[in-house]
Every structure is written in C-alpha cells, then in structure tokens.
C-alpha cells in the first residue's frame, strides 16, 4: 500500500477505530472455533492472530492520528513510504505489510503499531539530516513490527493486566473532581441488553479486547515504553536492515549523537526520552552491531540531496511559520 493510499485510508482507519470502540467481545478469546475451509488448525490460529494484530494496530494508529493529526503532504508521505518499504524489503520480515504516515507534531518521534502501521512525526523529519538516517529510523520501527514487539507485549499481558494498564492510562489523564462528578457510569457491555451491539459490531471483526489492548498499547507507546532490551534489539535490527539496503552504516548513531547534543543544549524532555533507553546506552548497542558487521569497511549511500528535495515543502512551511 503506498503512502498516498494510506493517507486516503486514514478516514477508514479512524472509522475502524470508532467501530472497534463500540464492540463487546474479548480479543484474546476471539479465536475461530473451527478452521475456515481449506485451512489447518495452525493456519487458522495464525490468521486469527494476524487479524487481531492488525485490529489492535489500526486502532492505535487511529488514536495517534486523532491525537496528533496527520501532516498532509502527499509527496513527502510517498517518499517516506518509498524509503520505509525499501528498508523493510531488506529486513528479516519482507512479507509483512507496512504503511507509513506523518504525524503533525514538532516533537521528534516515531511509533510502530502492530500490524505494520508506522507513524513518524514532522519534528523527526525536520531533525533528520539525510535519507540514510531516515532509513535507519524506519528500519528500527519495521523491526518492532516484524518482531511483533508491541503485539507480543500486549499479548503477554493477562486480561487483568491489560485492564490495569488501561486503568492506569486513564488515571494519568484523570479529570478534575468537578468533571468526575459529572461522569456517568461506564456502560456494562456484558449485559443482556447489549446483545444488539454485539450483533452489529461483531461483523466488523473488532472486540472490546481490541479496544482495551489498543488503550494499553497507547500507554506503552506514549508513556511507559517497551522493555529496553526490545529497543536495543530494534536499534540493532534497524541498523542491519539499513546497511543491507545500502545505506551509510553509522547513520542512526550520527542521528542519536546529534539528538543528544540538542537535548543538552535545550534541556528538554520528550516522549521519546521517556519511552526509550538513554541515548548513550543505545549508541553503545549500535556500536556493537557495527563492529560485528565490520561497518568501517562499508561505504553506504547518504542520500542527502534526495532527502532535501523530498522535504523541501516541509522546511519551506516551517520558515513561513517562523516569519
């Protein structure tokens, strides 16, 4: 799916997210009782898992797009998709589907949602210096998707843990006492009266488990972060994929180094700082993989001109806003 199509699909994604929110049966128990014709039991389980992964990811992507808004630049979105898909093709999971879009946020960050929905912020594209750095970052995100880091983290949670994570996320956004006094009871979707909703929404393939998992996933993406070892793994894999794709090996290290200097200069703390391990530790992990791959002997493409040409409208817009 190309970027332009993904842009057009955002409305569908949002509607899908809304439908999911009205659903009423558990994701984790939503396994097909008997395999579809022509599928073995194992194949059916794989298909069920894939559907669930896509549902959770679509819901999360919809929430991120709703929260940040989409940065609408068809040319730039196409370019991000082109680079991202090329890196993914050279990764360990080339047969998975990946879709890339740009979030309208100044803060440099990228999000990998299950099912292949990868969202990068406008701020990240502004901070990146060339295509090689972008490729390594997108490689990092495709590694998260390919290795199902987020989905596995959510799946490993028990239903109670998912509910707890959801409740914690809700508590962090807890409204003030006056708003709480106005809040009405949370509808009980398991009552017999909800039978109609079940009937109407089961057809959409979504469930309350999807909604809960997506909410818990948002907590991981925006507040808690994944396990730090998974982040190191994504860094190592991302660098590997980018090198395989022919890019300059040290691009991600250079980007992180520059980012660290900027942070020292401005003394600011972003979502990425909260959800990722410290930059020095990440650079150490990247150095290990570069050593193993003999990166010093590899001459990769930087793609400075192509990158600058693609983001020219973004920078021009930024300059206009400064004026």
């Amino acid at each position, binding site marked *: 799916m190309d970027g332009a199509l993904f842009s057009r699909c955002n409305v569908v994604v949002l509607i899908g997210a*809304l439908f999911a*929110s*009205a659903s*009423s049966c558990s994701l984790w128990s939503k396994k097909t009782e008997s395999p579809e014709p022509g599928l073995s039991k194992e194949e059916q389980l794989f298909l069920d898992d894939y559907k669930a992964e896509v549902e959770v990811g679509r819901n999360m992507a919809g929430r991120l797009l709703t929260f940040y*808004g989409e940065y609408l630049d068809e040319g730039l979105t196409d370019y991000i998709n082109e680079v991202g898909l090329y890196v993914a093709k050279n990764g360990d999971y080339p047969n998975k589907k990946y879709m890339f879009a740009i979030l309208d946020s100044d803060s440099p960050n990228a999000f990998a949602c299950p099912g292949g929905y990868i969202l990068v912020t406008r701020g990240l594209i502004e901070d990146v210096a060339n295509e090689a750095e972008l490729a390594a970052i997108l490689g990092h995100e495709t590694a998260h998707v390919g290795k199902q880091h987020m989905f596995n983290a959510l799946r490993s949670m028990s239903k109670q843990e998912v509910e707890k994570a959801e409740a914690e996320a809700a508590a962090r956004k807890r*409204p*003030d*006492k*006056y*708003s709480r*006094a*106005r*809040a*009405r*009871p*949370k*509808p*009980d*979707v398991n*009552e017999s*009266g*909800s039978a109609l*909703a079940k009937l109407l929404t089961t057809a959409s393939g979504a469930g*309350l488990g999807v*909604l809960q998992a997506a909410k818990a996933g948002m907590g991981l993406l925006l507040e808690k972060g994944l396990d730090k070892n998974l982040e190191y793994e994504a860094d190592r894999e991302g660098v590997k994929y980018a090198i395989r794709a022919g890019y300059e090996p040290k691009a991600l290290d250079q980007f992180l180094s520059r980012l660290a200097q900027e942070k020292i200069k401005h003394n600011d703390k972003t979502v990425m700082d909260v959800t990722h391990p410290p930059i020095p530790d990440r650079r150490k992990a990247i150095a290990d993989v570069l050593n193993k791959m003999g990166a010093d002997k590899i001459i990769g493409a930087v793609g400075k001109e192509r990158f600058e040409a693609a983001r020219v409208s973004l920078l021009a817009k930024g300059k206009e806003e400064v004026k």
Partner: protein
Amino acid sequence: MKMFSPGRIGWPVVLPVICIASMASPALADQMHYRNVITGERAQGMGGAYTGISDDASGVFYNPGGLAFAQSNDISGSANAFYSKKMTYKKAVLGVEDWKEESGGTFAPFFGVMQKLDRLMPGLVGGFAYYTLDTELKDQDSLLLNRGSLARYHRAANQRAATFGATGALGYRVSSSLGIGVSAGYLKADELIQVSQNYFTSSGSNYLMRSVRESLVAHGAQLGLGIQWAPATQVSIGLSARTGSYASQKYLQTADNLQIDNGTITSAPNEFKSNNPLGSMPLEIRAGAAWFASPRLIVTTDVDYHEAVTDMDHSTSKIFTRDSVLNYAIGTEYYLTSSIPIRAGYFTNNDATPMPSSSKTDQPDHVDYKGVTLFLAWAQPNSQVSAGAVVQKGTGKSQKVAGEKATQSIDALAYTLGFSATHSF
C-alpha cells in the same frame, strides 16, 4: 380570532343569532416562546431542565458556559419526532357544542456537534446546534350540518409553521469550577395559514363566504452568554441570557369576504401588510442548578424568563404582543443499570400570549401547559440511543368566533414521541 379586525375593515357582523358566523383562523405558532419543543437528547428527557448541566451539544442552546465542562467530543441528533396536538374549544359552536382542532406530523427537533478545542487553547470547547423550537402542521376539514338555523357550515383550514435556529457556541473553562461561554445564532420563523369558510342559513336567505391567508416570515440573529459554576463538587449552577434582533420581518394577511343577505351582496376584500409585526426579539434568561448526587443520579431544575414584547403594527388586535412569562422545569436522570439510564421531567409551558379579555375581540388563544417527559436510553461505550415521550396538558381561554367578545375555555393535549442518539468520539 386574530385574522383581522372587523372594525378596521368594515366587516358587517351579520347573523348575530348564530355564533359561528366565522371561526377564527388557527393560532399562529409562538415564535418567541421556546418551550413547545424541548431541545436536546438528555435535556429533552429531563424536561428541559438543563442550564445547570449543558455539557453536551445541546449546551449551545441552554447555556454555552456548560460546554466548558464537556466530557467528550459529541455528535448528537434526534431522529424525526412525531408530535400530535388536540385543542378543544369548549362550547364554541352555537354556545353549546365543542369545536376541535388537531395538528400533527413529524419534524427533526435537534442536531448538534461538540468538539474539544484544547489544541487551539486548553479548556476551549466549540459547539454547533440546529434546533426546531416550534412546529405546527394542520390540515383540517370541518363540516357542520343542520344546527338550528344553520344549514351548513364548511371550514377548511391549513397551517404549516416552523421556528428553528442554528447556533454556534464556544465554551471556555476559566478554572476547574467555572466555565463561561458565548453563542451566536440564526433564527427563522416561517408560517402560513389558509382558512376558507362557507356558511348557509336554513332559510336560504343568508350566505357568508370568507377566505383568509396569513403569512409570516421573520429571521434574525441571536447572541447569547452563559456561565456555569460549581460551588461544590457535586453541584452546578448555570445562568444564561440570549437576545437578538430581527433582520427581516414580513407579515401579509389577505382576506376575501362575500356576504349575501336576502339578495343584497356585500363584498369586503382586505389586505394588511407589515414589515415589522413582531417588534423586538425578547430577552431570554435561564437559571438552573444541577445536583450530581451520585454517578447514577442527577437532579436538576431550571427557571426561564421571556421578556414581554409589543406588537408594532396591529393597532387593534395586537396579535403579536407577548407578555413576559416565567416557566420552570425539574428533571432527573437515573441509571437503572450502568447501561440503561431513565430520564424524567416535569415542566411548565406557560403561554406568553396575553389572556383574552372579554372587552376586546379577535384575540389569540392563551393556553398554559404543564408537561411531563419520560425517556429511556441505552448506553454503550461512546454511544447512546434514547426514546420516549413528552406529554403536555393545557388549559386556557380563546375567542374563537371572529368579531365576538365572548370567550371560550380550551382544553389541550399535546404529545411528542422522540428518538435520539449521541455518539462520543
């Protein structure tokens, strides 16, 4: 009743022995008094006692200050509601027989959206609502035969009327316990009445034909201010005011009268025009309080006041003059289960039209209603549907016979069946 003044156009009051020479036309809908249709999904269920709550899209109408307390982004609408109204004019026919008029139909009472605008300014909420404030649809054909000296009386009356508004509003949370809001909107009243009457006496020597057409189109702008304050965690007090100005008003009344008395033919055509019949738009003030007793229970009450306005052009009949009027409402919402709230309300719908006086003629009906509402809703995550009824019972006074000073009492019964849905996102 208020079609035209017999004195002004020289209507000869013939046939005094029969007090049904000419029934007045149906009453004009009340363009200035907004309690005939209760706006909003939750608000309708609670009898319109919503000024102290107003935290959904209907807050645009009740109190824009309440928008600041929005719980979520909402889109809300009422499907076509069905309404029916029956008026019984006691002993209006020859002083012995009741006269009945009925109207009914469907209309779209409310549509509203509300969006939190925190990205523009933390605490800012925007809303838009379209609402029907009053509606009438009447198609009545009446035939009376052989009543004393009356051989035949035939009356065909048609009326369509709608008063509706479209308003945008902004609410802003000044502090955790205080919200303020402003609204700006458009209001339109559009009404057409056509009545044709024919009368024959049993002697065959008297005939009366009367055909009247009345139209009113007025539109204008309204501005509103609102404030909502929570003096305690579970209590909210709201106050809002709204007024405006008509940009255009057009009233046209045409009448053709033909009378034959023992071979003598009298014709009395008449036309009356006004470009300022309604005068000013009344000031409207609402005050309300809500008690959020528990997550399952809310009790709320409202008082609203409409300022008096004076008919500008009808020097004789003053059909658009309105008295100041005070109404109140009390409502409650209780969650029977966490998914099924029930809403009920009691409200008054006192008429702003002056009470007919026996020293004048051709005055409009005055009917004071008391109403109850009962709605049941079904809530699911992020969405809610509700259905229920509003029943109003009224009593009042009319001057149903044109040119006569006699008054009749009125019994009225109106009910509305409503279906609404809200989706939060």
